[in-house]
């Protein structure tokens, strides 16, 4: 036990010496990027995430196999759903569960389009979430939480502060206490979720919020939860509220 504690203390000292201190207000991950990546995200042509936005736009107007109707035939242009995106995840009072964008799309595919739901992290689901979130670009993340979701929000917050994994690190350890500090070649962000799905250079592809949660959990050597799992929905709800006011900037480019 003792040597391990020592090692952790050493790691913390290293962090401390380089720490930029706590941020005064919520900052998008964009603020922690270098100039090149900021320019890439801002480029209306070369941002690689736009490839998925394009594909999402095509899928939005395309009837699914099996004779169901296209998304656009009920919802109209993707922009009509723009007000919904910054308010997700939200509480569904019928199912008495939280629902997020991926879940809503998959539910619509099953109930309304009569097709098998697109698997999590499939190109189709990423493209549709990217297209809808892109439509909500610039809208501020909402801090509205239904009274019924108060407990879920509290659990999400507890998840954020819970130490986990072999490294015994909580989300807050990195993304709150040491946001802005350097972790190897990288700058630790505040863990905001306003840019998702993000084009992540590490993945060389687009990824969802839950993929990022899973990646982070694995990075501290904790067992990740499944895509769409309750703890991740609760965490997503807490992070949405934590970053309330930040503009949606999908598709964000991150390292």
């Amino acid at each position, binding site marked *: 036990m003792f040597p391990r504690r020592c090692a952790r203390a050493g790691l913390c000292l290293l962090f401390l010496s380089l720490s930029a201190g706590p941020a005064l207000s919520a900052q998008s991950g964009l603020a922690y990027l270098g100039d090149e990546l900021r320019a890439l995200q801002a480029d209306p042509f070369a941002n690689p995430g*736009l490839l998925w936005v394009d594909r999402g736009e095509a899928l939005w107007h395309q009837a699914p196999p099996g004779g169901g109707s296209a998304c656009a035939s009920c919802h109209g242009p993707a922009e009509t759903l723009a007000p919904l995106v910054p308010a997700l995840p939200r509480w569904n009072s019928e199912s008495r569960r939280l629902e997020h964008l991926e879940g809503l799309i998959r539910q619509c595919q099953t109930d309304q389009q009569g097709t098998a739901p697109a698997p999590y992290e499939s190109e189709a689901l990423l493209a549709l979430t990217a297209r809808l979130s892109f439509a909500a670009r610039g809208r501020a993340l909402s801090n509205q939480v239904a009274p019924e979701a108060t407990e879920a929000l509290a659990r999400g917050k507890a998840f954020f502060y819970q130490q986990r994994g072999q490294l015994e690190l909580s989300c807050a350890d990195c993304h709150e206490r040491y946001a802005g500090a350097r972790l190897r070649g990288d700058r630790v962000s505040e863990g905001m979720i306003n840019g998702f799905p993000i084009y992540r250079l590490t993945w060389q592809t687009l990824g969802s919020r839950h993929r990022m949660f899973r990646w982070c959990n694995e990075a501290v050597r904790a067992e990740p939860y499944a895509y769409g799992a309750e703890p991740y929905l609760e965490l997503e709800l807490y992070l949405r509220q934590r970053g309330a006011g930040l503009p949606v900037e999908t598709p964000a480019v991150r390292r």
Partner: protein
Amino acid sequence: MGTLSLPLRVALPSTVAAGEVVSLRLLLQHPMETGYRLGEDGARIPRQIIQSLRVYYADRCLADLTLQPAISANPYFAFSFIADRSGPVRIEIQDDQERQLTDVRELTVVP
């Protein structure tokens, strides 16, 4: 030779003044799988890359590129050239399975 179907973004103005420097930008969605990585089952993921990219302008070859596995996924290319006459800009992309994608844009040059 099969057909290659890829999401491709092309930025090229449709009308330019004669003698103007035109920029052509390309972004394509492709995994550019190196062939060196192992999958979760420990088996080698087969190589899958774009092997050649050619750009023609009014039947002249502007660029002829041979791509290697070290190029990242979803590659981006930018070219510039001097517009001296109207004509098609043709982009030819071929992957290592000999599948081909051709995209043609008309460029109109006004004197």
